[in-house]
């Protein structure tokens, strides 16, 4: 069963292959995403994050989940030597970490309900589990940052997370915290594969902020692989990335 809804400003797709899945199971996962949106959306004035940014709530008044995200963001900032930073101009925008975290939790909910073969895709960041309806591991195509309808690389993943950070959106949402006024133009897209989409997402965001050096950061992270596309359409991949690639 495969369903898609627009939530958190992006299409969220859930596909569960296990036969016992019901509409209600999947609806419950979408409800979880809606609750995340209510907490973290910077586009909703009444979200906890917006109220925190407006000074209406103190840190102590934040819910456990929001405080957890702030802590995780801080950990990521340190692990990435400051390149991952959710604070901009005195405001907090945790979108670079909330998405992966939410997808990962959603996958956890599905596993708790006894489902093994599924994926959760929110805006191109994905956690896969088990196999597709053909009985093979899920295949993921990496989008061409210069031509959205084109796939430029195909990987097959065995219970992993994959996240892509990119600048082919209108309205830059990633920049170098060490040089905030410099737009990041050196690279166009950074795809990271890791054990969980939560980690893939935050490290893809951090690596993207590093520009061309980002792929070296991923190379040095044990258990993570990356595929970086620069603004000239040249891709650089980590040394073990090839093990996921299939030529379709």
């Amino acid at each position, binding site marked *: 069963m495969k369903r898609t809804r*627009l939530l958190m*400003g*992006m299409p969220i*797709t859930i*596909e569960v292959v296990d036969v016992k899945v019901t509409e209600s199971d999947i609806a419950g996962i979408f409800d979880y995403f809606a609750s995340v949106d209510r907490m973290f959306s910077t*586009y*909703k004035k009444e979200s906890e994050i917006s109220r925190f940014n407006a000074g209406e709530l103190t840190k102590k008044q934040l819910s456990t989940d929001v405080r957890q995200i702030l802590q995780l963001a801080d950990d990521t900032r340190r692990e990435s030597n400051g390149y991952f930073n959710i604070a901009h101009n005195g405001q907090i925008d945790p979108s670079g970490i909330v998405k992966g975290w939410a997808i990962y939790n959603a996958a956890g909910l599905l596993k708790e309900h006894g489902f093994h073969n599924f*994926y959760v895709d929110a*805006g*191109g*960041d*994905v956690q*896969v589990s088990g196999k597709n309806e053909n009985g093979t591991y*899920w*295949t*993921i*195509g*990496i*989008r*061409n*940052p210069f031509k*959205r*309808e*084109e*796939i*430029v*690389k*195909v990987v097959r993943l065995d219970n992993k997370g994959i*996240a*892509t*950070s*990119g*600048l*082919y*959106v*209108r*309205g830059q949402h990633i920049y170098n915290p060490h040089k905030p006024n410099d737009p990041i133009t050196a690279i166009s*897209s950074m*795809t990271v594969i890791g054990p969980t989409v939560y980690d893939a997402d935050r490290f893809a965001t951090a690596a993207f902020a590093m520009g*061309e*050096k980002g*792929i*070296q950061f991923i*190379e*040095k992270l*044990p258990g993570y692989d990356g595929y970086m*596309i*620069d603004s*000239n*359409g*040249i*891709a*650089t*991949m*980590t*040394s073990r*990335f*090839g093990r996921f690639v299939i*030529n*379709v």
Partner: protein
Amino acid sequence: MKKILISVVTIVVFALYAVFGRNSSQASSTATGKPSSSNTYATNTSIAYKDGSYPGSAADAFYGTIQVRATVLNGKITDVQFLQYPNDSSHSVEVNQSAMPVLKQEAIQAQSANVDIVSGATQTSQAFKESLAAALSQAK
């Protein structure tokens, strides 16, 4: 364990540089449009060394001179440090960096779109989000 393996590999690689001269395929930070060949390294996990600190010879690494120092403790390599490193701005050195791998590059090419899932950055914009929020509030 993996760090030891990487250190051993690094020493072997630089030793090969020193003996056989520079490798002609380099991953470059400027676009060339040509894919460079991937490098395969010899690996050896069963070397025993005497404890101590050993500077290597200065080796010509094409874009400058490289010299490493290996530290051995309890018969195992526990650290490899750069004593000399090229100052080429396109190969900037980071503190505590113990290996500088040359990564494979390729020009992106269209593949089959016959995949289960697509990963790409979200195509969202401020206007889209505002429009979506307005539409959804009407749908309530």
